């Protein structure tokens, strides 16, 4: 445990020195603020909590942004060290390969969490103080769900990033694969599903099947988790019409994202153990 902690400290310090955390937090804050301030204007005098609007717009932002950042943090972590020669050195120390991966995961998740909490937190607080809506009346629960699920979404793509990083021989390959994975999850997958739906619009396509096909994608699970988090967010995102039998329980959504975190992480460790140095 002590050794993992040593690895975590070093990895975090490295991220901090790289200006990664600062950059990340700054970009997150700016984007979040812009989006939420713009998004809160049209609510006017409706009875919708401005924070609910923020949750909806921020979750749409996160779906693109967080996977990208997590992949960028992770893709280089093993293959980059291998290229610099520090990986071989590290493994001659009394650390196991499992500890190396876990150390990186914990440190990167920590950095990501800081960026998400500060960035979105500032946006959330600004919004809730700006309007005439009472501070305590805001959709804080939805907002907390947004923070938590965003961290979880980050964890998913960190794990996938390590899996890429341990499997390839060169950094450039890892970068290309990471971009490909990102496109697949946040864009191509949904486009494919849409195409499937369009093709089967004359009936014959099982709605239940399409729903689960969609939710298998962790970014869609994330979307569903946040857009249906309250009646306000559901209303805003057009999810209100979803009949109750089509609702998916929060537990299932969290479980899907957790599996997407654990399975690639376990796979990454397994591949890493077999990697030729």
């Amino acid at each position, binding site marked *: 445990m*002590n*050794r993992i902690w*040593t*690895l975590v*400290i*070093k990895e975090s*310090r*490295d991220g901090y*020195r*790289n200006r990664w955390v600062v950059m990340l937090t700054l970009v997150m804050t700016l984007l979040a603020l812009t989006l939420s301030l713009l998004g809160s204007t049209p609510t006017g005098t409706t009875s919708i909590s401005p924070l609910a609007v923020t949750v909806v717009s921020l979750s749409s932002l996160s779906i693109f942004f967080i996977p990208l950042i997590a992949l960028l943090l992770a893709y280089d972590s093993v293959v980059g060290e291998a290229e*610099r*020669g*520090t990986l*071989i*050195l*590290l*493994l*001659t*120390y*009394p*650390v*196991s390969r499992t500890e190396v991966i876990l150390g990186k995961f914990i440190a990167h998740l920590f950095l990501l969490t800081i960026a998400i909490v500060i960035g979105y937190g500032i946006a959330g607080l600004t919004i809730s103080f700006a309007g005439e809506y009472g501070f305590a009346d805001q959709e804080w629960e939805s907002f907390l769900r947004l923070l938590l699920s965003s961290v979880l979404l980050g964890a998913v793509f960190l794990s996938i990033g390590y899996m890429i990083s341990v499997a390839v021989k060169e950094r450039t390959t890892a970068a290309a694969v990471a971009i490909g994975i990102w496109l697949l999850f946040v864009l191509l997958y949904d486009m494919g599903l849409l195409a499937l739906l369009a093709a089967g619009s004359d009936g014959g396509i099982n709605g239940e099947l399409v729903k689960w096909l969609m939710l298998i994608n962790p970014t869609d699970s994330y979307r569903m988790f946040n857009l249906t988090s309250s009646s306000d967010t559901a209303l805003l995102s057009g999810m209100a019409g979803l009949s109750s039998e089509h609702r998916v329980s929060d537990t299932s959504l969290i479980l899907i994202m957790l599996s997407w975190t654990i399975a690639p992480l376990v796979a990454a460790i397994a591949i890493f153990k077999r990697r*030729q*140095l």
Partner: protein
Amino acid sequence: MNSIELTSLSKFYGKTEALAAIDLAVAPGDCLALVGHNGAGKSTLIKMVLGLIRPTSGRAVVMGYDPMSAPFNGIRKKIGFLPEQVLFQNNLTGWETLTFYARLKGASLKDLEGLFHRVDLYEAMNNRISTYSKGMRQRLGLAQALIGSPELLILDEPTSGLDPASRRNVYSIINDMKRNGATILISSHALTELDDRIDRVAVLNRGKIAALGSIANLRREMNISSEIVIHAPNDTMKILSRHFEGKFFVNGAARISCPADKKISFLRELIGLDIPLSDIEVNDPSLEEVFLELARKKAPEDE
């Protein structure tokens, strides 16, 4: 018990044989140099000693354990390793880097200052590594290998790219470690970079040990011919070719090989011929060539 004991150790990468049935033992306190050009199998051998890669066949025992086995992890803090090429994180300071490695080894941080002194980096220890010169980085790597006074020190090309003064410093550090009783395995692609303080040399060629012994012994054992180059007019060449074996008319010169102990008598005979010569060179084989030659002899090409 030997510190390192390799028994018919082999490693294949696909169908390429990187190491072929190596037998090698290094006794505690011994200092062995692995010499061979790039691709001779030095790094593969070192990686197997460190338990980084699994041998295809054969057995390695390092400080009493199989390096690929779980209990070897407990031995690792007694081993110091300097990789052939290592680029530490530029944005960390020398001190932070060594602290990280010392913590992993469970070594005391109190000794680190002394280590920085030892490798002449004390003044620079709180600077970022991005400000270090190549030699300083190499010295930091060496300091890293010395953390916790290892019982087994493995240095992969520790002096490549260093100026002569730094090289001397490396050897004086190695000597200190030896005096403390450490076993040392050092690799080099150039024999000229080695030092007399090395007890034994193992010459690797194409994954096989081509020669093993002290530098002095190897030099004595390998009696390789010198080459005598004679520049002379064409008429003279004809006379020369009647008297000696060799290659003639090579760019207007004759190249004759001659055993080292026959050089004087050869020259006497040449002078005795009383023919016009424009120039004469006697090329003794360098230590480097001796080893290359030896590698060729012991391990004939398979093709």
